[in-house]
């Protein structure tokens, strides 16, 4: 009897450890990491409407950062946002909405009217891609510099030095993807793939299936 129990225990141990090992190696489910909380904010957009992080709860949000006098320094980033805006309907996202948000770090110059004109010039669909900022420079710094951990600094000539970045946030307000230093066209492909990974988890991670997704987080089975 004692030997039987011992065999049973070892068999169970092998199944559990082997299953965990197989999960880690074969990664039947992939997820995006839960990196940290996205910042809280109340922005004013190009239509003069209030846009808060609570308004964006329950949907996916992709942020980038810039300003209307940016010139060619923002071209690649804007092109990627435009590409994603135009392809959102082709992605397998269920009925989860996606909003693109460009936050300006030049509130003194970037009035809603100027943001509106800029949004039109880059082909933004106002229903999907919003441009916004905060009048208070300290608050803006807490949001972009603190919460999104994205560097920007005003220069003497009125321009800004900044690190281009995209930040992907889920419906819980958790940062799930950060794409920095290479705002190339290839970023758009990767981000769109990641949007589908996020949607897959949001749609299917329910009931007993949620165990597999939590295991994927536990074993760091992150989508490349």
């Amino acid at each position, binding site marked *: 009897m004692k030997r039987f129990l011992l065999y049973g225990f070892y068999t*169970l141990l092998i*199944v*559990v450890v082997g*299953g965990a090992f197989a*999960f880690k190696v074969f990664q039947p489910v992939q997820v995006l*990491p*839960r*990196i*940290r*909380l*996205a*910042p*809280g*904010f*109340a922005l004013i957009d190009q239509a003069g409407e209030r846009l*808060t*992080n*609570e308004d964006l709860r329950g949907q996916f949000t992709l942020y980038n950062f810039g300003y209307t006098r940016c010139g060619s320094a923002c071209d690649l980033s804007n092109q990627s946002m435009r590409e994603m805006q135009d392809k959102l309907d082709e992605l397998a996202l269920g009925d989860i909405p996606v909003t693109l948000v460009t936050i300006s770090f030049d509130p003194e110059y970037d009035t809603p009217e100027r943001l509106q004109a800029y949004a039109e010039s880059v082909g933004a669909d106002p229903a999907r891609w919003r441009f916004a900022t905060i009048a208070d420079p*300290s*608050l803006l710094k*807490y*949001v972009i510099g*603190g*919460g999104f951990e994205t560097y920007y600094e005003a220069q003497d000539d009125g321009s800004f030095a900044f690190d281009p970045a995209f930040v992907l946030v889920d419906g*819980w*307000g*958790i940062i799930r993807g950060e794409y920095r230093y290479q705002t190339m066209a290839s970023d758009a492909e990767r981000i769109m793939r990641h949007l589908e990974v996020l949607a897959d988890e949001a749609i299917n991670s329910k009931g*007993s299936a*949620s*165990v*597999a997704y*939590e*295991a994927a*987080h*536990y074993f*760091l089975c992150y989508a490349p």
Partner: protein
Amino acid sequence: MTGVAACGLRPYEFHGTVMQSPSPAAPFSLMSNTGQRVSLDDFRGKLVMLYFGYTYCPDVCPATLVEIAGAMDILGEDAERVQVIMISVDPERDTPELLGKYVAHFDPSFLGVTGTPDEIAEVATLYGIYFEKHEGTAASGYLVDHTATTMVLDEEGRLKLLLPFGVTAADMAADLAQLLR
């Protein structure tokens, strides 16, 4: 995984979102109702439940704090391993004294903390808390809209669990007991 679940080894399911491999939560140093400034480092070795609210809050804050107090009751002695902190999103009206009286209504061990408007704006932003004043009634004065999420930080000061508004005391207690294991 189904087999594992069938054998009764199914992992515990939390009532909120778990942060795997969490990084350290944003540090802060704010004035508490004890008259001392407190920071997260003061509570290393304990779980910290962080809630952003204010004493004039008519509904969401008391409803949440009642559930948190209920969870502490359920935990019994283990509640000593949890520190509940309410950070005020109304620093203009919420003095440390007022916060002390307010949180004591729910549980004498709870701490209420506040700071300058700038300090509060920074800490709220970094914890993903939106808050904004809007008009109330003549009796209530202005109200403050705010995010109602409760956050649980682990013993090392890392954000571990996000609980949405509406989680019951029993479910909170079960989650906290799981984190204390």
